[in-house]
């Protein structure tokens, strides 16, 4: 993980989707290039940061991982508010998880009013043999709601980096669109975003481990 620096713009991306579709695994693969067969279900949101360079420009992503199960749905707004991007992740072998995406999309469209870039993600393409949702179906759906579409496998590390590049490019395009429309407002926003970025993961990790209470 890299430390936040003061001069790259920060984008907030939230990972949403039904339980066990691979939200945490995608994040783990992207941040640490690992896959954990024994990982635990996520009961509390967490986030990670990573810098990447797109079109010669370095940006920082604040990626939020959330708990997927429907009972924790009401916590969603706390985490997706203020996001410039959302990945709606489903499991290509699980029809139910695809249906669940649609609820999220509806909610995000109403709440974020098109301010966020949406990327529908079909995960677990390594299990193509048991695929339930055809790529065309999902692509068509994504198009119909103005979202981007991508497929990947966190387990086999297929197209994970591409996911984040795709969404980042779209977020950057949207941001420059906004700044052309309203240069002042956008500038002010990005400045203040930089100032709240004070976390430095290396420091946090280096905190005295024994001293807890």
């Amino acid at each position, binding site marked *: 993980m890299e430390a936040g620096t003061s001069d790259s713009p920060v984008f907030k991306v939230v990972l949403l989707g039904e339980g066990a579709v691979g939200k945490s695994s995608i994040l783990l693969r992207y941040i640490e290039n690992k896959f954990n067969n024994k990982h635990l279900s996520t009961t509390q949101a967490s986030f990670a940061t990573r810098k990447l360079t797109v079109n010669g420009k370095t940006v920082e992503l604040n990626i939020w991982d959330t708990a997927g199960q429907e*009972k924790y749905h009401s916590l969603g707004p706390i985490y997706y508010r203020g996001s410039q991007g959302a990945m709606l992740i489903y499991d290509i072998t699980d029809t139910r998880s695809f249906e669940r995406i649609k609820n999220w999309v509806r909610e995000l469209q109403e709440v974020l009013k098109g301010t966020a870039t949406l990327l529908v993600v079909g995960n677990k393409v390594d299990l193509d043999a048991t695929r339930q949702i055809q790529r065309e179906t999902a692509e068509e759906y994504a198009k119909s709601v103005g979202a981007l579409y991508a497929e990947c496998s966190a387990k086999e590390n297929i197209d994970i980096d591409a996911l984040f590049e795709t969404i980042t490019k779209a977020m950057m395009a949207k941001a420059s669109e906004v700044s052309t429309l309203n240069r002042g407002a956008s500038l002010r926003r990005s400045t203040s975003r930089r100032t709240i970025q004070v976390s430095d993961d290396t420091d946090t990790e280096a905190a005295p481990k024994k001293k807890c209470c």
Partner: protein
Amino acid sequence: MTELARQNRPNLRDDYQSIVYSQPEVFAEIVRSDSASLPPGTNTAVFLNGNLLIIEKGHGVYIEWQPIERTARTSLSENDTNADDWVIEGSPPKDGTEVQNVSSFSFNADIKDLRSYTYNDPVTKKGVAWVRFYCKDGTASETFHMKGGGYRDFVTQLQRYTTLSRSAKERNLVMFVDECTEALEKSVGMLNLNKDFVSRFLSNPYATSLTALGKVTNLITPLLDPDSNTDHQLQAMVNLDPVVEDETLRSHTDNIGFEHIFELQLPERPVIEHGDTPVDEAVWHSFRDEAGRITDVHSLKSLIFRGGIDPALRKTIWKYMLGYYKWDLTDEENKAARKKHHENYFRMKLQWMSMTPDQEARFGLFRDYKALIEKDVTRTDRTHPYFTRKELKNLILLKDVLNTYMMYNFDLGYVQGMSDFLSPLLVIMEDEVDTFWCFVGLMDRVHRNFELSQAAIKQQLQDLKNLLEIVNPKLTNYLESHDSIHMYFCFRWILVAFKREFGFDDIMHLWEVLWTDIPCKGFLLLCCVAILDGQMNMIIENKFGLTEILKHINNLSMKINLHEMLRNAEAIYHQLAAVQDKLPRHIAEVLSFTIDEDEATTVQ
């Protein structure tokens, strides 16, 4: 909180009343009914002597002021009282004006109906403190001059029943913070509505107040209604029409609000010596009579609280701790009960096992729960040797017990996190049926954490905030000004009772301690307070914001020293116990300080 107080005293009759505060020589300042006819310059105010009371009644807590004299004074100072006595009733005063009946000046209000009070509490001994109450319907009381003193005691008593907040904007104004308002503030805080609203208000006050205020009333109701479902709440959130945050305006809202009055001074934190030896075979046997009954359960639990249970004995003692075996039954009786439980378990297991695919196709909820269980079983404690890939049969046991529990409590069904509670039980019991019934006992303690409304979790987070406010006001203020006072970063701690924060050995020890309910049922929250208290400098010095706090707290997982946490939590408990009569009622309840009192009142 008064609601809670009432729930805990269900047997109180409506005519129950107990005066918890009584202060004589409180003078109501009243306007002479004949003031209009008095010559200009005459003092139109007179002072009527009476008692100010706080009274607990069966249906609420009341503030009352009752006159005790029929004679009003024209001044509060000693010197001229005798000279200018003024008769209210009976023989009219010399100037012959009509006066009202003194009892019409008495004041009586349920504290739930009070919005605020203004006060003056002079620093010098000479001045007389006064209070004046404002009801929610906009009416105000007389001004009550506390000539006999007692203002501070009054506030202390009052704080046992309600939360008081001094307005930061208006000097001498103190608000009664009721549950609805608090719930609203919480929901609003959760949604960042206040920021959006205030920032929009600052940029366009007129338009914002027209649109947003109108909306607020629409959204309050579903957010506050504990019975309204998530869809409604969600709709309410959606209706907020939030705008993109604007950091530059955010700072405007930071200093608006209320500060809590009268910081409670806690005694110094005591040093707790822990680390007694675990309850082992010898100790366990010393507690059993010849038939196997445990008579002195409390002493045994005290030992468990101090030192935990020897791992070899967990298999036996947990059955009692979780209510599967009964302390007061003989070995024979418990054995007989176990046999019955056995049959009962397999009866319920058969219910889901015999479900045909055809039946399942028309049983959506069952199908959903089953799928959730399937998903979670494969991601529960897979690093523990008991659940590794080679031990598939144990994963199947996990799944079978969860499926059977779903049939046992279908209303609750299955929720993510429940498997976390089950796995240590299975590891200890190594028996499907015993595990199931212990799990039933454990879920009885925590099932409310998994209810759809999340009300129990929210209540615990609220209680945690209230506790932290007393133990560490500095940190509380910091969290408040950094969007984190909702305490959501402690969600996981509470949801699965620290399961994700400790390794297997530690969590077993911690759970045993928690199951003793010593020193109180809210000990889990004190553990949370102890950890947060220890993290204060980390959080504040690093200037962590909402996201950094969440991340920092998440990262504490597996790095918390269990015994240090337990010692600190107990020490904090003793600090609070020392001031228990000054604690707000809702906090006293979380810490079980009110139990004796409640028992006493029920007896009446």
